[in-house]
């Protein structure tokens, strides 16, 4: 068990595959930077792999003060046991007060294994992190500067703030895409601390036989404009309207889970709690009711336009432009107007 260490650093597990950093740890850096500044401690990234020294500079540019670099031929491919062992040993050695992971497939495989070994708490799939105080009800004791781990629960119907009082490090996995990636600053300076580890064959119980990567059909996270269709669009044929509007705006087509389940479009296009989280400049929601699970993935968009024929549709509560009407009339009008403006 690791004792409370108020001087401990804030850490981000810098997930990489084949020498390429994932987006989520980089997105995490901006929030982690703020947490570290509030606590007055350093922000460090831990990067594990084979020949990954080159990634340290990028992590520093994105806000790290320090990079713990662990290189070993047996760390070339991620696997649970070897990575958990190395991270656990690092955590024991340096006693960070906070350790954050992206809630990716890898992060969600790794973090609980480490938490179990360290007998530490872990909160899954956070959408926000803050520093705050907590008073225990029983003894009225004030615990200052804890990590508030904020996450949706119960299928997205409530938001819970979770804390760890006495058993540290405070650990959380953080949803992909919910935090904006910081702008890299090429002038930033930081330290690289090289750690040596001993690994043996028994630390790698898995044999990787094959891996098939499937390119995503669409990169919603990178889109400036998104046109999303819901069940209200009615059919796969009619979903053409969504593609056409997206095309003439230079945007990406997206959908609700209901539309994906109905076979209107591929799951890669799904926005929401079980899809992608997006924050485009413009989000046009067409025939979408605006369920909480859908909003979880798009409410941070800068401008939201909603087209719906039900005045009580919840999507109107988050929309900047509310168009109450039939999408089969409104969308063709929008396409026509945009084409006329010659955009």
């Amino acid at each position, binding site marked *: 068990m690791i004792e409370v260490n108020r001087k401990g650093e804030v850490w981000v597990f810098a997930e990489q595959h084949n020498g390429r950093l994932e987006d989520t740890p980089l997105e995490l850096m901006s929030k982690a930077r703020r947490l570290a500044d509030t606590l007055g401690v350093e922000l460090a990234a831990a990067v594990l792999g084979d020949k990954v020294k080159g990634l340290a500079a990028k992590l520093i540019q994105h806000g790290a003060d320090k990079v713990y670099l662990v290189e070993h031929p047996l760390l070339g491919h991620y696997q649970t046991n070897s990575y958990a062992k190395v991270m656990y040993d690092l955590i024991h050695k340096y006693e960070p007060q906070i350790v954050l992971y992206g809630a990716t497939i890898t992060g969600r495989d790794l973090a*609980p*294994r480490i938490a179990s070994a360290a007998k530490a708490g872990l909160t899954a799939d956070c959408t926000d992190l803050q520093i705050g105080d907590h008073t225990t009800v029983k003894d009225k004791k004030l615990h200052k500067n804890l990590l508030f781990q904020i996450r949706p629960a*119960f299928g997205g119907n409530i938001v819970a703030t979770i804390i760890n009082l006495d058993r540290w490090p405070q650990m959380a996995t953080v949803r992909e895409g919910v935090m904006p990636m910081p702008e890299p600053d090429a002038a930033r300076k930081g330290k690289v601390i090289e750690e040596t580890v001993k690994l043996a064959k028994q630390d790698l*119980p898995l044999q990787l036989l094959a891996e098939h990567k499937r390119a995503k059909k669409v990169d919603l996270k990178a889109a400036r404009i998104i046109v999303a269709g819901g069940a209200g669009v009615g059919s796969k044929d009619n979903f053409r309207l969504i593609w056409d509007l997206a095309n003439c705006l230079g945007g990406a087509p997206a959908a609700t889970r209901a539309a994906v389940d109905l076979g209107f479009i591929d799951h890669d296009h799904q926005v929401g709690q079980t899809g992608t989280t997006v924050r485009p400049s413009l989000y046009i929601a067409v025939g979408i009711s605006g369920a909480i699970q859908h909003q979880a993935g798009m409410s941070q968009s800068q401008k939201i336009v909603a087209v719906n024929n039900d005045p009580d549709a919840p999507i109107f509560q988050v929309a900047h432009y509310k168009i109450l009407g039939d999408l089969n009339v409104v969308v063709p009008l929008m396409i026509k107007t945009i084409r006329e403006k010659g955009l």
Partner: protein
Amino acid sequence: MGYKCIVLIKQVPDTKRITGDVMNDDGTVKRSALPAIFNPEDLNALETALEIKGQFRGRVTVLTMGLPGASAILRESLYRGADEAILITDPRCAASDTLATSYILSCAVKKLDYDIVLCGRQAIDGDTAQVGPQLAEKLAVTQITYVEELIELAGKTITAQRNIGNGSQQVKAKLPVLLTVVGDANEPRVAAARKMMKFKNARTPIEVEQEGKDENPDPNEADIKELAAHKCSKLEKRGLLIKQWDLDSVGADLNWCGAGGSPTKVHRIQSVVLAAKQSKDVEPSADGISDMIHELIEEKTIT
């Protein structure tokens, strides 16, 4: 011969059915107002175990930690073909987080003999996906998460395909292993009528006792206990007694159980409030839409 599988299952409130009626004013959820169901991906884990048994023989044990009412999903597992069912129920389990839960489950699993432990990827009430990996660590076995297909079982090795989000990965490991199974892995079978007839009367001791109390409104503790014991031994002879364990019988260290054994605490719960924003009504006409598009171009949202 064959493989010994243990499937960990959970009874969960059906979070898909949440409406305003089941929310308390403070934003917490009235769990009791929601129907309790078999966690969907645990059914996929059970199906995988039953397929293994179908192909190689062996034995499928289902294990759950929960309130006495969780025996409902144990019976459902027996209807589908599980050989043995065990309920861990103890008031001292209350408020366990994933770490404490995985500890209690590990104590129970260690009492059993196994080649493969199976869990659903995650439970729909918490969506954490943490208990599987934490349990694997406590059992010191290899974990294979996000399993979408069992490729091969041969002697003491297993080959499985994982869904890694943007693709898939095939891995091979030596038994014993812990698998977490995703919803796409298979189509869980339905209950078999013959087994339903057989197991509909399967009970845990705590249910037998409760039924005794319900039938006999004038309770005499000693009598009820004796009657229950008698009924349990009759059920046991017919293979209908569901095993019931508490924290003492699994040999758990109470320091690691329940609220005290859980490092994570709830600071605050809020219901989701929809953000009210500055908004404009747009006429669904050529003019209305043209004005809006014009505004979006002016402010450089559309370029």
